[in-house]
C-alpha cells in the first residue's frame, strides 16, 4: 500500500509534465496540473497516511 501510494504520487507529478508535450493549450495544461496535484495529495494523505494510521501508536 505504501509503495503504491508513492507510485501514484510520482505519476501525479509526471502527468502535467507529459501534458507539456501533448498539448500547447494552456487550459488543458492547467487542468492536468490540477489533476496531478489532486493525485499527489490523494496518494499522500489518502493512501500513505491511512496506511501509517493502521498501526498508529494511539490505536495500540
Amino acid at each position, binding site marked *: 500500500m505504501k509503495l503504491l501510494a*508513492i507510485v501514484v504520487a510520482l505519476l501525479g507529478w509526471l502527468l502535467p509534465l507529459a501534458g507539456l508535450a501533448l498539448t500547447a493549450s494552456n487550459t488543458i495544461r492547467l487542468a492536468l496540473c490540477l489533476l496531478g496535484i489532486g493525485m499527489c495529495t490523494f496518494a*499522500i494523505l489518502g493512501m500513505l497516511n491511512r496506511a501509517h494510521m493502521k498501526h498508529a501508536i*494511539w490505536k495500540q
Partner: protein
Amino acid sequence: MKLARLPLIFAAALLLCSIAVGADTPPPATATAPAAPAAVLHGSTVIKDAAAPTADELAKGDPAGDKTGTVTDVAVADSKTGLTLLDLANQAGQNKVAINFTWTLIAGFLVMFMQAGFALVETGLCRAKNANHTMMMNFMVYGFGLFAYWVCGFAIQMGGVGGVANLGGTAPLSHEFTITVLGKTWGLFGTSGFFLSGATYDVGVMVLFLFQMVFMDTALTIVTGSAAERWKFAAFAFCSVLMGAFTYPLFANWAWGGGWLSQLGANFGLGHGYVDFAGSGVVHAVGGITALAAAMLIGPRIGKYNRDGSANAIPGHDIVLVLAGCFILAFGWFGFNPGSTLGASGNGNLRIATIAVNTMLAGCTGSFGAIFYMWRRYGKPDASMVGNGLLAGLVAITAPSGFVSTVGAAIIGLIAGVLVCLSCEFFERVAKIDDPVGAISVHGVNGIWGVISVGLFADGSTNYGGGWNGVSGPVRGLFYGDPSQLIAQLIGVVTLIGFVFSLSFAFNALVDWLVGQRVSPETELEGLDIPEMGSLGYPEFVLKMQRTTVAPKEAPTTYGGVSVVAPSFGSGD
C-alpha cells in the same frame, strides 16, 4: 459574527485596491532625449588636473567628511602615467561588485541568525523535558547541513548556474548535467563545485556558497520542528545530511540553478518558467514537505491522540521563547528576501526597498489573519498561532516578494495567516499527523501558497534589468494578464508534492531501516533530554515539577507495551 467578517472584508478591499492600482499603472515613458554626440574616449586617456585635497588639508582632519573618498583613493595601475579612464572604470566595476558582495554577505549573516529564531520557537513550543534535545537538533543541523552542502550539495544545486553578473561572474560554475526529452534540454543537476575545489576556489563562488548555504540550512531546520519530542538524535543527523546533500539541492537546481523548472518559459512558453524569488517553494515548501514525510513516518507523540482518535493539546513550555524567536525570524527575513537580489548595485537591484517593505507587510497581515481567525473561533487571540501567522505571512511572501506590489503583499500575507490556522486544524484533527510546532502548515502549506501567489499577483513592474530565467519582459501573473505563469508555478507545486515528498519519504524510510527513527516509549515518556543528550535542559525546573506533580485526569493506559499514565500537560509550576 461581525468580527468574523472582518478578514473577508479586509481581503476584498485589498483585492479591489490591487486591481485598481494595476489598472491605473501609467504606460512606460517613451519620450527619448536628443542623442548627444558620442565622444571617443580610450582607456589610456590620462585624466589631468583632477581636483583633490592637498596633503596639508588632509592633515588637518576631516570632521565634515567631504575630503575623504576622492580621486586620490582611486587605485592607479601605473604611477608614471597617472590616473587613466581605465583606472576609473576598473574602480567603478570593483565598487559595484564590492557593494554586491557586502550586501549579499550581510544578508547571508542575517539568514544564518534565523537559526537562533527557529531554535527558540521550536524549543518554546515543546515541553520542558525535551528542551535540550530540541535545542541541540536546531544547533547541530547547522553543522550537519553545512558539511553535506560543502561536500556535494552546492555542486548539485549551483554547479551549472553559469555567470551571476552581480557577483562578478562566478564563471567556474558552468557544468550542468542535462538530458534531451521531447526535443528539449532538461537540466537535472550541477557537476562543478564539489568541496569548493578547483576552479570554484573563487571569491564570487564563495559569496554565492555562503548565501545559498544558509538558505539550505533554513529548509533543514524546519523538519526538526515536526519531528520534535520523539526523534532519535542519530536519525535526525542522518536525515539532515541526506537532505542537505541531495533533496534540497536537487529541487533548488531545478528552480535556481538553471534546471528544467526554470526553463519552462524558454522551452514551453510558460511565462518566465518557474519563478521563486527567495524560496517559498525551494526553501520552505521543501522543508515543510520533508517535515510532513518525517512526521508521518515517525508517528504522533504519546498522548497526542486518544483511543477514539480525538486530539489532545500539548502546550509548549515557554511562549516567551516562541514569540522572541518569531521576532528574530522576522528580522532575519530582511536578509532572506531583499538579499535574494544578490546585489544592491546594478539594474533593478534598488528594488530591494520594495522587497523589504513587502516582507514587512506580509508578516504583519499574516499575524492579522491568524489573530482574526483564532479570536473568532476560540474567543481568544492565541499567542502561538499569532506567531505562526506572522511566520506564515513571511513564508508566503518569500517567492513573490520581488514581483508584487505592496497591496498584493498584504493580501498574500492575510490569506497565509488564515490558511495556517485552517491547515494546523486539518493536520491535527483530520489527517491525525502530529506536528508539535506547526511546521508543515507554516512552511509546507504556505510555501506552496507563496509559489502559487506569484502566478496570481506578479504585477509586471520589474524584470531586474534583463530577462528572468532567459525570457524577456517582466513577470506577470494571472491578475495582470499572463495565465501561463500560473501554470509554470503549478508545475513547481506538483513537483514539490509528487517528487520532493516521494524522495524525502524514501530517505526517511531508509534511515528508519538503518537506525530507527523513533525513540522508545520509555524514553519519550521520561523526556529525551537525559536518554538522548545526557543532561537536562532545565534541571532545577524539572526538580520543582517532580515535587508538584498533579494526579492525571485520565486512566492509565499502555503504549508500545509500556504501562504509563496519560501525561499532565503544562509546566507543573
